[in-house]
């Protein structure tokens, strides 16, 4: 195959991987601190994207025309609102059920996700229709043979990777990160040592959801479109990615995101049959991976979560 095309496929896959990884890190953080699966996370991501869209429209109506300011406004609005939403879900739905069987949390968050999704569909003006997402990034591209390098894609990739690295540093190098890791490892001992359990959990949910909001905005900017149902597939993929990598392991979630994107790209490109089956292929491969390494690709024997 032509090297330009290989590079193009690689770039496409990387872009998908960044979005999946951002979503997967959320799933894995929530599981890390509370051993719960927050199934409304996909819809929280969607909510972030719609918040950004509403912010752009609102700022536009207020007379702002500069793209960078619109973009910053949209990002800040999406991250703040979605982080609060994540903390709210944790406070109202997850924490009260922390002592009950995990199945209850799974169910209640699944319902919360459906409620959130349908609320956007019903209350956002014509929410059932796909909404064009404004093109706020520079439009140009460099052609290198058969490879088309677009500036917006490069910026989105860079932003995604920086965010992932920043979260990693936050967790490994700061006091908050230390608290999160301590709670993840042993909540009771952490409490005895003076780490506020509740605050740490809420902060973790806010952080995971903020990353989800970023994923939603990156997704919207990349495809120039958002729909109320985008959280469904993105949630399923993000969760699968987190499981492949090993639930509770941030590095694993990131690897899982890129592995899933790679599987999808291979499914569409390298298989002889129609690309309609690329998701069938990718999810079937997930089943095989999970059967082979049930604890995840990066699971450590002495499971230090997060």
């Amino acid at each position, binding site marked *: 195959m032509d090297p330009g095309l290989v590079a193009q496929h690689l770039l496409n896959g990387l872009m*998908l991987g960044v979005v999946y990884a951002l979503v997967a890190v959320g799933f894995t953080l929530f599981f890390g601190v509370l051993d719960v699966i927050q199934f409304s996370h996909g819809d929280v991501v969607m909510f972030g994207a719609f918040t950004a869209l509403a912010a752009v429209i609102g700022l536009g109506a207020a007379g702002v025309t500069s793209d960078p300011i619109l973009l910053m406004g949209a990002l800040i609005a999406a991250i703040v609102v979605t982080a609060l939403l994540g903390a709210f879900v944790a406070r109202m739905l997850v924490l009260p059920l922390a002592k009950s069987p995990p199945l209850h949390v799974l169910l209640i968050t699944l319902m919360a996700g459906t409620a959130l999704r349908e609320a956007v569909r019903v209350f956002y003006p014509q929410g059932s229709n796909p909404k064009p997402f404004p093109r706020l990034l520079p439009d140009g591209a460099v052609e290198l043979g058969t490879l088309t390098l677009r500036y917006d894609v490069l910026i989105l990739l860079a932003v995604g990777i920086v965010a992932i690295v920043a979260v990693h540093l936050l967790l490994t190098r700061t006091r908050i990160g230390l608290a999160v890791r301590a709670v993840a490892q042993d909540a009771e001992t952490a409490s005895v040592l003076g780490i506020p359990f509740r605050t740490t959990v809420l902060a973790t949910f806010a952080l995971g959801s903020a990353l989800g909001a970023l994923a939603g905005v990156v997704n919207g900017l990349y495809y120039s479109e958002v729909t109320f149902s985008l959280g469904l597939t993105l949630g399923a993929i993000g969760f699968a990615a987190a499981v492949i990598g090993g639930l509770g392991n941030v590095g694993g979630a990131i690897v899982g995101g890129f592995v899933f994107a790679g599987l999808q790209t291979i499914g569409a490109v390298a298989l002889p049959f129609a690309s309609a089956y690329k998701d069938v292929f990718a999810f079937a491969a997930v089943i095989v991976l999970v059967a082979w390494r049930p604890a995840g690709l990066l699971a450590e024997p002495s499971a230090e979560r997060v």
Partner: protein
Amino acid sequence: MKVVAVSAALAAVLLALPVAAKDTVRIVFIGPLTGGVSANGIGARNSADLAVRVRNADPKAKYTYELQVLDDECKPNIGVQVATKAATDKTIIAGVTHYCSAVAMAAVDVYRKFSLPVVVWGAVLPDVTYAADIKEVHRVNGTMINQNETAARFMAGLKYKRWAVIHDTTDYGKGHNRYFSEQLAKVGGEIVGTFGVTAEQQDFSAELTKIKSLKPEVIYFGGLTPLGVRIRSQMDKLGVKAVFEGTSGIVSDAYIEGLGPLAEGTLAFREGAPTEKLPGGRMFIEQYDKQKYADPPESYGPFAYAAAVLVMDAIEKVGPDRRKVRAELNKTRDHESIVGPITFDDHRQNAVPLITKFVVQDGKWVVWEDSLYATGKRSLPKP
């Protein structure tokens, strides 16, 4: 004697009633009012509504009509639900139904089961009328066979030789793929790759990158507007320079709205003349504008209008009785309508011989012959 006098008085009252207040007859409109193709559904809903309003304003009409509007969301399962709701409501006499072929395919059996005569206004898959011989199902718009024949011939006439095909994997998209491929083979075009994609798919970068390596001159897309917008937009992001050729499924203002300037030069084909060139097109546009609907009629609005008029004409003639209306619709021949005379064949399919070629020019679907592309002032990517 008294009894006779009372009966006479009663009879007089009964006879006088229709003059004083007409009976109300209910008909149903079903189409996608939410979701990606809702623009088409809403335009057609308005058009059917217009037909009802015009009829109700006509003093010669025997009945007052009421339009029940239901949303099939372009989803087969929802379509079956709402079709059942309408068909089991005995106060509804007939229907004007469906834009999405996959939905129409799922719903036709409901109409047969509950004997509700319907006239399809937008779905183009031939199987809707031809697959099963269901006497309740009629169609005023044409099928995708004719539009794909024209699509293949026309493009071959422009000297294009290499195609890549992307189609959605519903009955609708598969039908387009099948008929287009057949017709293209006849005119000697080559298909370098065929890609089936799900109707919900978001990311096409892998498919389009592969297509880029196959170097087609034209990308043929068999599917509906939302996917069309995504694919065209991602073609640009990946630097795929081929001509984008769609079907009647993307001939909508929503396509242009979703893409902005990127829509320029997109080709598509649809049965029937453009609205303003239809026999009753001017009248239709004038009446439509008068009602001040918030949304345009879109490309299938005139068909929905004609279908509603056809249904009401049948009810006027034989009365509000489903079986009689069905029999009346079945034998429709040379029935004057705004889309031209309607004649149903043995499968109750109207023959719409004329196929119009469209190209997007300056943010509008323009008939090819009237476009700057036909005169050579603008050009599509060269073969």
